[in-house]
């Protein structure tokens, strides 16, 4: 240790903001640095891996029609994405509490809601880019290969031959409009945000990792059940199940409504995060 004198602090150095979000920016950046690069890479690999597996499935079992392929493709893709989100976010808050790092962070002059919100804010771009954007565009590419009957630079002769029979039978579903494709992707993002917000809340409420994961896995299942159980449409419209419903419509080749479900899902996301922040704010660490 030395006896060096410390540089005096300028009076303006102390940040004075006292709002509910003090520290949000810095915490989000720190959190995002944790997600990058390995975990994000993991998500991309997972998304593309699923795409590749579906594709392989398609190649190996050529007797199938495109109709039969598109529906499970989007369905399974979404299932995997939402499960991966649930799995990756389960420890986001709870393990920080149990390991004492949450106490470390909030002993600094940061607002407690900022701690909760930063977890979520760092996740959003990763979800959008790595989990939906990249595989979504890749999927679009694969489908356009299928539709153009191989007339692309990806001139996979085998693929064309394998697809000839179902295409010749002409019983495949035509390639969906690009805006429908985008609509499905947008709804996926909103649904995943709802799930992530629910995970943040569960992380605040529950202590045991197993309980958090099981409860988290119930969220998408509950959404599917809600969307399918035949509830009054007005009731469904009040829940994120509307977005789920609408997305399933789009996958089935029907017109897809994006705006309304997105707004409802956003409101739910905000509500869940607000509840999580409030709960965390009064929690002892």
């Amino acid at each position: 240790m030395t006896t060096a004198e410390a540089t005096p602090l300028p009076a303006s150095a102390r940040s004075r903001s006292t709002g509910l979000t003090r520290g949000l920016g810095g915490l989000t950046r720190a959190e995002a640095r944790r997600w990058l690069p390995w975990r994000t890479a993991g998500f991309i690999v997972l998304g593309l891996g699923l795409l590749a597996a579906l594709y392989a499935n398609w190649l190996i079992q050529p007797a199938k029609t495109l109709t039969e392929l598109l529906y499970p493709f989007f369905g399974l893709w979404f299932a995997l994405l939402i499960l991966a989100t649930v799995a990756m976010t389960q420890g986001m808050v709870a393990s920080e509490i149990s390991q004492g790092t949450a106490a470390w962070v909030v002993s600094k002059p940061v607002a407690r809601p900022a701690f909760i919100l930063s977890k979520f804010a760092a996740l959003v771009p990763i979800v959008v880019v790595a989990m939906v954007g990249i595989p979504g565009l890749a999927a679009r590419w694969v489908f356009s290969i299928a539709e153009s009957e191989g007339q692309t630079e990806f001139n996979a002769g085998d693929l064309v031959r394998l697809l000839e029979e179902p295409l010749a039978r002409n019983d495949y579903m035509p390639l969906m409009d690009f805006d429908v494709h985008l609509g499905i992707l947008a709804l996926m993002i909103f649904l995943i945000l709802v799930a992530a917000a629910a995970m943040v809340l569960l992380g605040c409420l529950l202590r045991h990792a197993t309980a958090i994961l099981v409860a988290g896995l119930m969220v998408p299942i509950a959404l599917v059940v809600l969307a399918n159980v035949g509830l009054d449409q007005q009731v469904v419209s009040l829940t994120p199940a509307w977005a789920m419903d609408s997305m399933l419509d789009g996958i089935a080749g029907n017109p897809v409504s994006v705006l309304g479900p997105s707004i409802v899902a956003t409101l739910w996301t905000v509500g869940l995060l607000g509840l999580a922040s409030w709960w965390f704010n009064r929690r002892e660490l």
Partner: protein
Amino acid sequence: MSTERRTFALLPGLGGLLKGEFHRWLGRRILLHSVVWTLLVTGLLWLVTTTMANIEWRGFDLLIHIWWIALPLGSIAIAQNALIEERQAETLPWVLSKPVSRPAIILSKVISDALGIILPAVILQAIIAWFMLPALEPKAGLPIQEPEFSRYLTVVAVQVVIVVLFVGVAVFAGTIFRNRGPVAALGLGIWMLLWISPGDVFDRLTLGGVVSGELTGESFKPITKYLLFDQALDSASGIYWTLLWSALFTLAAIGVFSREQF
């Protein structure tokens, strides 16, 4: 003080570790798990069978579908904790400073978690369903096919294999990852892969040929056809292979864990 120490046990400490793990399962935990599993498996079965008039699955076929979703997810959710929990609490060096061998730690986790899932989620649910479904027939609206008992036992055995596989995978993932996220993601990935089941060779070397089904456009999995329609089980070898895979994952977990330093 003068107790003669046995020093030639095959897996020193396994007995004590298992006792500790079982002690943890006993009591409120196993009760809670039994209740939750009953709600999730036979409870859901009861709900769908008695209330949803227009669904085509309503009997033992639905039980198989529910199991196929609940067991892998549940196994992953429970077994992902096995090592990560100890890592985060930093208790592994403490346990390892006792006269226990490292393989014993891995085995105690696999055995206790597998049993902790098999008993309430497979055995208990199989018994409840066996008696409940025939009794529900009057309410169901459709006839419920009753399977042969020996075939039912085989199906239950397949569920045990599923649990052992995913517990093995999750424990293995716990030796290479430090957080629950990737551990759970690896398990979920393998589950998805089995679901998609991309082909004959893959099917024969895994449970794929037994449990996949949806993607072929048929509503029934091969195992449902085996149970209810007296068809042969196409790739029964997949079951043995999967047991082997479970053993391989467990051995890999032991290998990785034995090299770790604390």
